């Protein structure tokens, strides 16, 4: 739910895990983001940011899944034509 966009962590500050902050780059603009909820994320990682908080780290190995799934569908034998 809700507007959350992917950005790349450029730098990290703060020792206290709950107030760990990062400068995150979104396609050339930067915002300071709270990283408390992604302690595993580091400089260079992509995170999904919602209202100033990183809520998840982007799993780059899954990023191609959308294209891979489509490719596999294309390789399946011809199915019965769907009714429009």
């Amino acid at each position, binding site marked *: 739910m809700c507007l959350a966009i992917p950005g790349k962590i450029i730098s990290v500050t703060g020792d206290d895990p709950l107030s760990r902050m990062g400068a995150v780059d*979104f*396609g050339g*603009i*930067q*915002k300071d983001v709270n990283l408390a909820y992604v302690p595993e994320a580091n400089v260079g990682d992509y995170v999904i940011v*919602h209202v100033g908080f990183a809520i998840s780290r982007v799993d780059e190995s899954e990023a191609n899944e959308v294209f891979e799934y489509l490719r596999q569908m294309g390789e399946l034998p011809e199915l019965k034509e769907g009714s429009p």
Partner: protein
Amino acid sequence: MNHGVEFTSACPIPIRQYPRILLAHGGGGKLMHELLEKMFFAAFGEAPANGRHDAAVLNFPAGRLAFTTDSYVVRPIVFPGGDIGSMAVHGTVNDLAMSGARPLWLSAAFILEEGLSMETLWGVVCSMRDAAARSEVRIVTGDTKVVDKGKGDGLFINTAGIGVIEHSLVIAPGSVKTGDAVLISGDVARHGMAIMSVREGLEFQSRIQSDSAPVSGLVRKLLAAGLELHCLRDLTRGGLASALNEIAETAKQRIVIEENSVPVREDVHAACELLGLDPLQVACEGRFVAFVPAKDADQALSIMRRDESGAGAGRIGAVENGDPPLVVLKSAIGASRILDMPSGEQLPRIC
């Protein structure tokens, strides 16, 4: 008062003993006289031939007269890539250019809030001087008023402009024809996002600068090439969506735009995604759309791209037959939807 980016004026401020505007600066007496002499007249150049009088008397060249006015209330007063002053000059110059006029003279009326920093005012005035020089116009008359603190939000400017139309084309929505190509002079949404980047509560770090700039020189080149310009419209508040909707409605035509062909810089695109705004509805300042016969599109683009204010020009769509008049957008994935007039202020969203 948050005036955004602070001014560092290149020219030393001429009024030193009053760091802030007082009510007396609008009172018609000595202080006001000093303000006019040392600031406004000093920056805007020598007086017209009849000296400083209630009206500027000017020799108008042969041709039709174009006349426009606009008021500027932008906040913050100073923003990345410009300020309220340069924006006012460029804005009025561009309005004249959009009817194919050569801009000649501007008036500049100021409403100052008591307490406005003299440094800020001087910065704005210098900026207007530079913008006028760049636009090849002169600021020949004006007015100054001061309102009580709390009643004026710093600084408001009104500019009116006079230009001369030296050709016989009728450049207006009524001249738009089915089949016309729709061209844009550069990438969109820079001005609005530059302002957002310094707006309290929504700030972000970026290199986005307002695109506020004069386009009159470029329009003159298009006219000089003898192109049949049907309509020109500069994009301001409401961005591309607003301008196209106004033209579609007045011209009673349907305009179809390819979303992928509208140029948007990556960082502007990212800023719009961050705040949940549509770049096609965000304000620009130094951009215009041009409606030309399809056969002239390539030549027009070639002229635009060779000019600094048209470097990013491109073809974004066409005028089609259709009722009711609308602006239709073909999305990135090929489906169509309406590009509506933005309703009210664009509010950033969470969802």
